[in-house]
């Protein structure tokens, strides 16, 4: 347990220090949100309608951007080999790394989302609901992405392949995240059911992601 806590703290410290790039994701998120009005035009009504979707796509892309660093840096400097040989179960070790990664890259996205929601003309209470769906849903993106990050490490030059492998697997998260977010702006749409499914998806991926990633690392790095 102490080993896992130490790993968690180490990863978080590394992420916020020089060269860590924890806030790079938020900056990228802001850029994606800024680009969309250039694409679809500055119509405030339209932006309010597709706002939750833009926030979700932005968060997805920003998460994807950071995944490359989740395991690759440790692989490069050899500490991943130490983790593989350590006493802590590999599944829990990669889960701790993914949790640290989410706390430093995913959580800032959730915190920034209400501010970016104002850019997109989403009104007050709806912003809260969209941020809530992001809070619940982005861990799923990180833990699914963990599988892709493990594959990318096992491939050596898998950086290009990572988004191609991860994106199809995130489709259900995106569907239910946006469905729950849409409920906030369209009164007719139900909120409870998609939100609960989103929670279920997150819990499932928190289990499947570390197990699959650990399997990839065990089989792929020998």
């Amino acid at each position, binding site marked *: 347990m102490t080993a896992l806590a130490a790993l968690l703290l180490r990863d978080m410290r590394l992420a916020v220090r020089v060269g860590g790039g924890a806030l790079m994701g938020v900056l990228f998120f802001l850029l994606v949100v800024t680009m969309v009005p250039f694409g679809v035009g500055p119509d405030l009504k339209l932006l309010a309608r597709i706002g939750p979707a833009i926030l979700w796509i932005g968060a997805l892309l920003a998460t994807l951007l950071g995944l490359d660093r989740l395991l690759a840096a440790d692989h490069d400097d050899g500490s991943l080999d130490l983790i593989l040989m350590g006493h802590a179960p590999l599944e829990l070790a990669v889960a701790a790394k993914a949790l640290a990664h989410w706390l430093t890259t995913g959580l800032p996205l959730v915190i920034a989302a209400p501010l970016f929601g104002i850019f997109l003309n989403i009104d007050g209470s709806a912003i809260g609901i969209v941020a809530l769906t992001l809070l619940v849903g982005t861990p799923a993106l990180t833990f699914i992405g963990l599988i892709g990050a493990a594959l990318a490490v096992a*491939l050596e*030059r898998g950086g290009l392949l990572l988004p*191609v*492998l991860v994106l*199809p*697997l995130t489709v*259900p998260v995106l569907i239910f995240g946006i469905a729950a977010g849409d409920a906030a702006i369209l009164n007719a749409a139900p909120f409870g059911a998609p939100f609960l499914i989103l929670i279920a998806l997150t819990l499932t991926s928190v289990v499947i992601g570390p197990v699959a990633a650990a399997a990839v690392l065990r*089989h*792929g790095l020998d």
Partner: protein
Amino acid sequence: MEWIALANPSRFLALAERLLPWLAAATALAFAAGLYAAFFVAPEDYQQGATVRIIFIHVPGAWLGMLGWAIMSVAALGTLVWRHPLADVALKTAAPIGAAFTFVCLVTGALWGRPMWGTYWVWDARLTSVLVLFLMYLGLIALWRAIEDPARAARAAAVLTLVGAVNLPIIKFSVDWWSTLHQPASVFRVGGSTIHPAILAPLLVMALAFTLLFATLYVSAMRNEILRRRVRTLRLLQVHAAQGA
């Protein structure tokens, strides 16, 4: 040598050589019967007209596109649990064939959708999940092409295949969960098929023909892959021998 152990499923090769002519002949026969029934025996639908005949290709394509991933999931278990070299080959060769059948399903569906729904494509749950299946096939093929060592590639691909297998039930039940444009299951359902026997019979013959075609392509692809690995092994041994000398 690890390489020799990899390229040694000789009994499969012998079986494949014996099986392939029969499979190919059965495929040709089933297609002859199925296509004849589809074009000359099956009546035109009172609403859809002749376009109903597209389902004779569309539906088997969809079934086999999903069957491909199911076969790959079983092979992935073989790769991860038993480290069986033949499972690696089965895992690798099913991907392009499954992708091709899924592609056939998507294209014929679009061609049917244009006159019937008035559009080639809608973002409906069933269509979207089949498209995602197709994209996952392509991602998996890309993964195979990214790793040089076939044994390592097999293990990485096996994990991804099993994770992707979650998508199969989503496709199967998408029509029941979200009732959108695509019609719900009509061939295999509780209470019997809703398709008229005049259409259903040719459809089942075509499904048999497609399954036989899948089996023929699959067995020959596995044979080719085994031979390809043998050639690779021989080349590697040659290089090793040349370096040792």
